[in-house]
């Protein structure tokens, strides 16, 4: 057996691969395709205090090598998630990272305080970067002081380590990362979607009912790689990387760029077995190269003696 184990604050991962928030619901649907216990972790859909209906449809559009979404944080609300969704996931041997969202700092604090008590929630992911809602979300993710304030508030109430999810729609991603780190974040997850828009060819109007949407998929991978590369060298907390990962090679790229673990979003839609295929690909790589998975983290900017430059 190859060793793919990764230790991160609050998280002992069997392997570094996990579905990204919003692309995997609360796991039920993909449980038909494979055993969820095989995943490193699961980042569940954003949770807000109250039930949210989200935006009007259409909510998704396809772009060249990517897609736009404007779901608008639809979710059944904190209570329903605690009662119905998390217990379902407790049947699997997999740590849950709860994605926390809200309109106000109080919303975040409320969700964080409660959801961090769920036995299978091993970490929180602060969604301060959702481009698809009018209030909350992105303003916390584009201002260093607001981000720091929110991070501190959540850290105070959370029973588990807190990861801050960074928005790529900023001038200074390193500054945002450092603000989160100084405010006590235990880790970073990045990147959320780029803000984008598609027009309907027939009407000329925006295709998504919400107008703007979040761009994800292979198209954004170069942006994500450079941000992970820059941020991972500027902070001393771990980074979980994401943005356009659909193969094991993509996952390796993120680890080379400095990510300690990797999340898979859009690729689940293209290929429901994406996470499994990536885990198997990584296993083969680790086995062939006869290395520890941790050895390759940051290879793009530091010598990596155990690995041949094949």
């Amino acid at each position, binding site marked *: 057996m190859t060793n793919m184990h990764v230790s991160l604050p609050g998280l002992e991962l069997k392997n570094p691969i996990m579905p990204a928030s919003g692309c995997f619901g609360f796991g039920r649907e993909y449980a038909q395709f494979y055993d969820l216990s095989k995943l490193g972790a699961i980042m569940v859909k954003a949770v807000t205090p109250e039930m949210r209906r989200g935006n009007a449809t259409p909510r998704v*559009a396809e772009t060249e090598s990517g*897609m736009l979404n404007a779901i608008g944080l639809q979710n059944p609300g904190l209570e329903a998630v605690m009662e119905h969704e998390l217990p379902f996931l407790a049947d699997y041997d997999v740590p849950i990272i709860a994605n926390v969202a809200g309109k106000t700092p109080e919303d975040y604090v409320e969700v964080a305080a409660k959801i961090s008590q769920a036995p299978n929630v091993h970490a929180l992911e602060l969604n301060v970067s959702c481009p698809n809602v009018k209030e909350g979300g992105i303003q916390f993710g584009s201002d260093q002081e607001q981000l720091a304030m929110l991070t501190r508030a959540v850290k105070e109430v959370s029973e588990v380590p807190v990861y801050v999810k960074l928005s790529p729609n900023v001038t200074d991603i390193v500054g945002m990362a450092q603000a989160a780190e100084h405010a006590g974040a235990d880790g970073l997850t990045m990147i959320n979607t780029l803000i984008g828009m598609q027009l309907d060819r027939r009407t000329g109007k925006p295709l998504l009912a919400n107008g703007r949407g979040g761009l994800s998929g292979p198209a954004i991978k170069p942006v994500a790689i450079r941000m992970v590369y820059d941020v991972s060298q500027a902070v001393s907390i771990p980074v979980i990387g994401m943005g356009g990962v659909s193969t094991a090679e993509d996952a390796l790229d993120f680890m080379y760029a400095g990510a300690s673990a990797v999340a898979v979003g859009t690729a689940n*839609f293209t290929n429901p*077995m994406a996470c499994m295929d990536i885990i198997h690909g990584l296993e083969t790589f680790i086995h062939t190269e006869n290395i520890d998975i941790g050895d390759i983290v940051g290879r793009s900017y530091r010598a990596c003696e155990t690995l041949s430059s094949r």
Partner: protein
Amino acid sequence: MLSLEVTSNRFLTSDVVQMELTSEQDLGRGSVGKFIHIDVGRTLRRPISICEVDGHSLTIVYRIEGTGTAWLSERQSGEVLNALGPLGSGYPIMKSGKALLVGGGIGIPPLLQTAKELASNGVQVTTILGFRSEPFLVEEFATYSDVHVVTEDGSHGTKGFVTDVMDAFTYDTFYSCGPRAMLQAVKQRATSPGYLSLEERMGCGVGACLACVCDKADGTYAKVCTDGPVFESEEVVL
């Protein structure tokens, strides 16, 4: 996941194509109104309704709209498609009585298997098929039902909309699929409750991403990909 081998792919009209597929897996006959989610080599899969299904053979009928359906239309016999499905929840099939099927445009294909299953249950089936101009699948429907063709330009059958001829028939329930405006009109005009098949842009197709929601009459929402695409006509807000 399904591996589907293309056995034929031919144009029914200038932009409507019928594709016959063979599945490794036995799909039975129960997927009336369900859909498959086809990998067309792009980021998102394309949802296409099952038109006919019987064991290992499957037929879909699609209109060329954009990149994905254009790609489908170029597939040759022998090529293998990757698809998810059958997905969703389809049309419940009555055991007896009279059924009215109302299809518009590219909403027509999923009603063919429905007509077949109803007819084999001994249900008396009437079908109204609405086209902009060029009809397709009319003969196939005629095998199982009494067919009435309506075209917007009057080039075939009655000139007008499907709702213009609905009043002429009596039925215990109806089954409809087509553009949202047509479904609204059909629901309003119908003299009984029935079933509507909805279309919505999809991400995952399996219920995980919440791209495809629609409002339910009770104030909650449903996912078209898993709770639908077929809903009871009173259940959803159009």
